[in-house]
Structures are given as structure tokens and as C-alpha cells.
């Protein structure tokens, strides 16, 4: 597909600048992507990676600067122009319709009127040749996150792009799925295509990328060959100083500590045709302990979180116990009043109301627990006190923002996550349940959040962390349990846990799991 053109730079960016209000999201950024290379774009959250990429894809217009495509200056005014030039993009958040098949989703974006059968055949051939197995006739709702990503990639490849932009592609994949993706990327490189790879997972950047451009606070701080760097030297470039490694001191006597969060035989019927039923889950988290729940996305973690948080209540009031009290019949507010705190996976629209200010979002989860402080007589909100509490959290978690009290949607993902986690930590909860604490969060912020969770546990709280990031769970957990198809394995003490053991459980290898291979149809 790639035309055998003369070597040279496929894309050259000179002095690209974008300003939002008073914040220079991108400040005179230079970037060159050569033909047939995998080029990493590294940077912390809010460093300007997404802004830069959006300008390359035509979703945002630069204030100044120049984009050269194959040596010719171009103006990319909208994504259509980008596609015509040969720039394709796979977004971090997929935009697929769950009730349609993979082929139908692809057809929607191609929009050239070719018959669906033809598109399905093309997609099948392409997926086969790139080693991305995909059945074009399957419903998106039935597919795992990894498979959904394949649809996005194939959709992008069908347009025969010269440059493919991937935004944090491995954040939703198992280690095995990520390996497959890397093979595909290497094949694309061999064909002479260029890839702009956005990530903050330093190990994988070192593994597959030929060159890297590092952004910090909207400015390019360096170009390098990641293979010649160490993870910590890359991290230093990104963050500006050494990333503090997360410290977890093992503690003895956890077995004797009281269980602050107990889950007993928790079951739940699937709420929608696309959700997973929960089957007889039992688990307890003791004071001082961090328990991790590993698992591939879409194996019931979201349903489990809803049930534990009280967004969905249980019929059996003893199914969830918080601080030794039955909480199954309590609402999320009732459970918070027992000392529990919750951080959901989705930041915008679940953990935070996008169009509301940070101070209002503080009130969102704490209006009941801190009623005496935040709410005055007659239900009057003490906005001055709420604002100063929000500022306290912003300072404690180093949340970066462009306005004094901005709307949640105006923050970058990582900064918003720091605020949402900080909002709960600020309460010193006795039980903390977190779903994907560092999803799409950069190294510096992730280390901060992880360390804070460990410290919360060590100060006597019970912490339950649901995550797809195995490195993270190994870093912070005292024990790891695995969720697969709505069932939870026995927790494995960290001293006995290995990547292999957990990886096998994630694939459903435990005897108790094997029988449920075809449960998706029943659901």
C-alpha cells in the first residue's frame, strides 16, 4: 500500500503552539517523524501530548506554527483533511456502537457506500494479514476491550494511512494482547508506515520505539533514542526530576487485624444484555491491607464496583459489610457514612460532573459525610469553605489547572484523577475502594496516587484496588485476587504471586472458572 517514495521526513512540525486561556498547552513544539519509524511521544498528563495530536489530526487548530507533510506545508483544518493526507488515528476512548457488528461500525466511519459484505471481507483479510484476529460479524457489545481496539485499528488501516497515531493503546490490554499489538506495529513499520506512539509506559516505549520526543509543560524537552535510555532517565526527562519509586513496606500481623470490608457470597444478575453477572463473590480486606483485584477489562469489575459502592444495592444485607456493619441494603451515602470512600473508573460523568467546578465536584461525594463542615443552616452550601477544601486537595495532590476553580472537563485526565482520589483521601476513609486508580495517568501522578493508597492502608484503613495494570497491583498490593467472568479467585498473598500465576487466572485457568466459557450467550 505504501508508495515507495524517497526517504525523508514524512511529517515535520515546526513551532506549533496552542493556547487555552492563559495556559500554553503546546509551546513552539518541534517534531519530525521519519518514514518507517515508530516514534514515541512521551510526557506526563497535561504535558500537551493530546493537544499536539489533536492539531495533527485536525480536531484543534494551532495558533501558530507550521506542519509539513512530505516536505509541503499543509493546513489540517479538520479530520477529513488529515485522513486525505494519510493520517489515521486510534483514540484512547473508542467510539463504537455496542449494538452493531464490527463490520457495521467500520462501514459507518468509511462512509463511501460500499456494501457491508465487501467491507467485512476486506476487514477479515486485513485482520488476518496483520495478525489481529477479528470476526467482522460479531456484535461489538460482546467483544473485549482488546478486540474493540482491534476494530479501531483495522478501521484506521482500511484507509491506508501513511502515519498512524496511537493514543495510549496498551492501557486496556493484557500483557499477551499488548505483545500481539507490538507485533502488528512492527509489521506496519516494515511496510514503511510511520507510527506516532503516545504512551507513558516507559518499558514498552524502550521496547518498540525507534525515537522519542519528550514533552513537559507543553514544551519539547528532548529528542532521544529510547533504546539507549533507561526507564528512569526517560522518566526524569518527562517529569523533570527522578520519579520516586513507590515504597511498600510489608507488614506482619495483618491476619489478626479486623476486616473492615467484607463481601460474602455477593451475586448479581446482569443488568443489561452486555453486562456480566456476578457469581458468589467473597472477599475480605483487613485494616492496614491493600488487596488488588486483577482481571481483563469487562469481566465484571464495573458491576462489582457498583455493587460494593452501593450504587446498586443488595437484597442480602450481609453481602457487603463495612466496618463490621451490614451495608448491603444501604445506599452509597449510607456506606460512605460508615467510613467508606469510592473512586469509580470513569472520571467524567461518573466520578465527576464534567460541567461543574472542582469545588462543586468536591461536594459531589462529600456533601453527606462532611455535612457539618460544608452545609450551613437551611441546606445553604458554605461555598467559601468548600472552595478552600478543594484548594487543600489541589495542593496536596499537585493538581495542575488553567483557572482558579475550573470545570472538571477542563482538566487533563491525570490531573482530574488526582483530584478525585485526593477528594476521598482527604476524608481519611476507613475503607477505600478504587476502580482503575491510574488509568491513563502518567508515571509521576501514578506513583503519587499509588503511594497515597499504600499510606492510607498503613495508617489503618482497608484498601481495595481494582486494576487492569498488573505492574501496579504488584507494586501496591498485599494480596491479589483475580476476577474472571464474574467470579473472583482466592486472594494470593503477594509473596506467592507471580505474573504467570495471575496471568493464567486472568485467562480463566482456575478449575472453578473453566466451566463458564460460554456464559456470554446466557447473559
Amino acid at each position, binding site marked *: 500500500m505504501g508508495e515507495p517514495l524517497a526517504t525523508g521526513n514524512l511529517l515535520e512540525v515546526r513551532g506549533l503552539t496552542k493556547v487555552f486561556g492563559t495556559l500554553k498547552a503546546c509551546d513552539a513544539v518541534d517534531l519530525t517523524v521519519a518514514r518507517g519509524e515508530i516514534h514515541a511521544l512521551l510526557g506526563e498528563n497535561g504535558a500537551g501530548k493530546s493537544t499536539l495530536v489533536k492539531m495533527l489530526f*485536525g*480536531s484543534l487548530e494551532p495558533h501558530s506554527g507550521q506542519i509539513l507533510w512530505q516536505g509541503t506545508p499543509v493546513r489540517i483544518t*479538520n*479530520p477529513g483533511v488529515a485522513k*486525505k493526507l494519510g493520517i489515521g488515528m486510534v483514540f484512547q476512548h473508542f467510539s463504537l456502537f455496542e449494538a452493531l457488528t464490527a463490520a457495521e461500525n467500520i462501514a459507518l466511519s468509511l462512509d463511501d457506500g460500499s456494501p457491508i459484505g465487501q467491507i467485512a471481507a476486506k476487514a477479515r483479510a486485513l485482520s488476518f494479514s496483520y495478525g489481529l484476529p477479528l470476526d467482522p460479524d460479531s456484535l461489538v457489545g460482546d467483544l473485549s476491550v482488546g478486540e474493540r481496539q482491534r476494530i479501531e485499528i483495522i478501521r484506521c488501516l482500511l484507509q491506508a494511512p501513511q502515519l498512524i497515531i496511537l493514543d495510549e493503546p496498551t492501557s486496556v490490554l493484557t500483557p499477551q494482547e499488548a505483545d500481539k499489538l507490538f507485533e502488528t506495529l512492527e509489521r506496519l513499520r516494515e511496510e514503511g508506515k510511520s507510527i506516532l506512539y503516545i504512551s507513558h509506559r516507559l518499558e514498552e516505549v524502550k521496547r518498540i520505539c525507534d525515537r522519542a520526543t519528550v514533552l513537559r509543560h507543553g514544551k519539547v524537552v528532548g529528542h532521544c533514542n529510547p533504546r539507549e535510555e533507561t526507564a528512569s532517565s526517560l522518566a526524569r526527562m518527562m517529569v523533570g526530576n527522578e520519579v520516586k519509586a513507590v515504597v511498600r513496606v510489608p507488614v506482619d500481623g495483618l491476619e489478626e487485624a479486623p476486616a473492615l470490608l467484607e463481601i460474602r457470597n455477593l451475586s448479581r444478575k446482569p443488568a443489561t444484555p452486555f453486562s456480566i453477572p456476578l457469581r458468589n463473590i467473597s472477599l475480605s480486606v483487613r485494616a492496614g491491607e491493600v488487596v488488588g483485584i486483577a482481571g481483563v477489562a469487562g469481566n465484571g469489575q464495573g458491576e462489582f464496583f457498583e455493587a460494593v459502592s452501593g450504587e446498586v444495592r443488595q437484597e442480602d444485607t450481609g453481602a457487603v459489610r463495612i466496618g463490621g456493619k451490614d451495608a448491603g441494603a444501604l*445506599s*452509597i451515602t449510607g456506606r460512605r457514612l460508615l467510613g467508606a470512600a469510592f473512586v469509580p473508573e470513569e472520571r467524567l460523568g461518573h466520578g465527576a460532573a464534567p460541567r461543574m467546578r472542582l469545588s462543586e465536584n468536591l461536594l459531589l*461525594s462529600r456533601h453527606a459525610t462532611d455535612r457539618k463542615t460544608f452545609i450551613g443552616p437551611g441546606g445553604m452550601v458554605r*461555598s467559601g469553605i468548600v472552595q478552600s477544601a478543594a484548594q487543600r486537595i489541589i495542593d496536596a495532590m499537585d493538581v495542575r489547572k488553567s483557572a482558579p476553580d475550573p470545570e472538571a472537563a477542563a482538566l487533563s485526565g491525570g490531573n482530574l484523577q488526582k483530584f478525585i482520589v485526593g477528594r476521598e483521601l482527604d476524608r481519611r476513609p476507613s475503607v477505600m475502594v478504587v476502580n482503575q486508580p491510574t488509568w491513563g495517568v502518567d508515571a509521576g501522578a501514578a506513583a503519587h496516587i499509588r503511594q497515597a493508597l499504600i499510606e492510607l492502608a498503613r495508617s489503618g484503613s482497608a484498601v481495595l484496588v481494582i486494576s487492569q495494570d498488573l505492574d501496579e497491583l504488584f507494586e501496591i498490593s498485599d494480596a491479589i485476587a483475580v476476577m474472571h467472568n464474574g467470579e473472583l479467585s482466592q486472594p494470593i498473598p503477594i509473596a506467592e504471586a507471580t505474573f504467570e500465576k495471575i496471568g493464567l487466572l486472568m485467562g480463566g485457568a482456575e478449575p472453578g472458572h473453566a466451566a463458564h466459557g460460554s456464559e456470554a450467550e446466557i447473559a
Partner: protein
Amino acid sequence: MRVELVKRPQRSALFSALSPFIAFALTMAAGAILFLLLGINPISAFYTYFISPISEVWQLHELTIKAAPLILIAVGLAVCYRANIWNIGAEGQLIMGAIVGSAIPVMFPAFESPIVLPLCLLLGMLGGAAYAAIPAVLKARFNTNEILTSLMLVYVAQLFLDWMVRGPWRDPQGHGFPQTVMFNDSATLPALFPVAGRANWGFVFALVAALAVWILMTRLLRGFEVRVLGSSPRAGRFAGFNFNRMVFFTFMLSGALAGLAGISEVTGAINQLQPTISPGYGFTAIIVAFLGRLNPLGIVAAGLVLALTYLGGEAAQTALGISDKVARVFQGMLLFFVLGCDTLIHYRIRFVGLGAKARGESEAVPAAKLEEVH
């Protein structure tokens, strides 16, 4: 050439403020065309319509009489709409409030006491709230579409009023006219400045209600709850806010205010029940709520503007000999243009030449993506 809507990255503060004015200007332009087609000079028609009805003090009093129910109802509706709950049945709640509130003066016409009027007003609010609770129950319990149920209950209320004044509550000395007895003085809402005109306490109620709702929405936890549940229901559930409770709260609050509007109208301006007691205030208030940007203070201004269209309609009928239905046409155009112009807050208009067709279409997907991110 083709016109395209392109989503703005952020909502535009400029167009948020300008939109009602643009809408008003477009309504005027369309109105001018309408008058030209009717063979009337638009300038003199506009004068008759918008200037002559407020050129004397007593006319300003009339303006407040029309504006009071519009403002009262619209501030209640604004709370509903902010919560993403669509109460379209304020007209019915107004009528039910008027009927229930009239129970004492109609059934005990000889009962005179200073507590009669407060009781009437209270009963009126209760009547409106109770009637609004019907679509609330249906929505909370059976997830019915409140737009349909609340709207249909308007016709039920209208026919119920019609039956009441022709049947059980007809004035025995009324020569068979379908109306109740005249209310006694203690059941009459007093005028504010009797010497200058008819303006009554209803307008004061409207201003107090607007101020109270403004405090509710901007200062109180309950208002925060309304805004969260309306703008992101899932975050609202995470906050522990109960959507069903919110359905009852917003419906009954707006029902009570509509009921108050109804009983104020009956005790203040009409002084008896008739088959028709409202020229569609409950529907016009929807326009008022949107024209006022769902902001109680904006609604006060919008209420006065819409009240003027009622007065203008009456004036045009006498001075120009055109149907007072023209007022409805004006109101309809105004709502149409307001909603249309609100698009400009989130989108900008782009003109595209024919050659760019393909390019424009291929944008469909990223536009959807943007949607998702926001």
C-alpha cells in the same frame, strides 16, 4: 453551497448571552413579513403591538397582571428543566390549583375572615402540587414519559373545570351562566396601589418566587442536586442523589407554583371560576423559561416580554382588526427562534462550497468522538 454546524470545543459565553436577543430580532423580522402579507404597515403594527400597550401607568399594571403567572410558572418549570425533567403540564396544574383554591369561597361564600385568602392560596398550591404528583408517580414508578402524561393531564383539568362550573359549582343565581359565585372580599387578592391600577400581589409573589428559586439553584445543596442530576445523572447517582425523589421534588415544586399562579389569577383578576381562566399561561411559561435561559432572574425579564405579547395581541385586535391569535403566532415564533439560536451556543455555523461535500461528510466520525469526550 451548504450550511454546516461545527461543534465548538467549549460552550460560547458570548452566544449564551446574545441568543435571546438574536431570537427576538428574528421574531421581529418574521413578524414584519407576516404583517406585510396581511397588508399592514409593520412599523405601525409593531407600535400598536409593543409600544402602545405600555404607554400609560395603568397599562403597566396590566402588564404585571399578565406577567405574574408567567413568571411564577416559569421559575418552577426552570427547576424541572434543569433537572432534565420535562413538565409540560403547568397549564393543568394552574387550573387544578385554581379549582382547589376556590373551594372555600365557592362552597362557603358567606365565610369572611382574614385567614380565608391565605387558606385559598395554600390550597391552590397544594392542588397544583398534588396534580403534578400524578405524572411524577407515573414516571418514578412506571418510567412513563412525563412529557406525554403531564400534557394529557392538561386536557383532563380543563374539562374538569368546565364540568365543575357547569355542574356542581354553578352559581344558582347566575342565570344559568357557566360560572361560580363571585368571591367575597376576604377571598380577593388586594391590589398593590388601588389608585393607580389593578396590579395585585400576584406580581410580588412572582418576584419572591424568582428570588427564592434563584437562591435554591445557586446557594442550596438541593439546587446543586438538581443541577448534578440534570447534567450528569450517573455522577448524581454516585453522589447518592435519588433521581426518583428529584422527579417528585421538581414536579411538585413547579406544580405548587403553577397552582399559586392559578389561584392568584382567580382571586386577583377574575374573582370567580369560569370555563376558561387562563389564556394558555402554562404553555407560554415554557417559552418564558427558555427565553430567560432557565435563570430565575432572566425569567422575570422574559415574563414581562411575553406578557407584552398578550397585551399587544389585544391592542392589535381593537386597533388593527386582526385576530388576537397573532399573539400566539408571535409566541410560537419566539420559542422557535430561541431554541434555534441556542444551537449557536454549542455549535458554530460554517458555509461550505459544493466541492467540499466529501470532506464534510468524512467529518461525521470525529464529530461523534468529540461528543464523547465532552
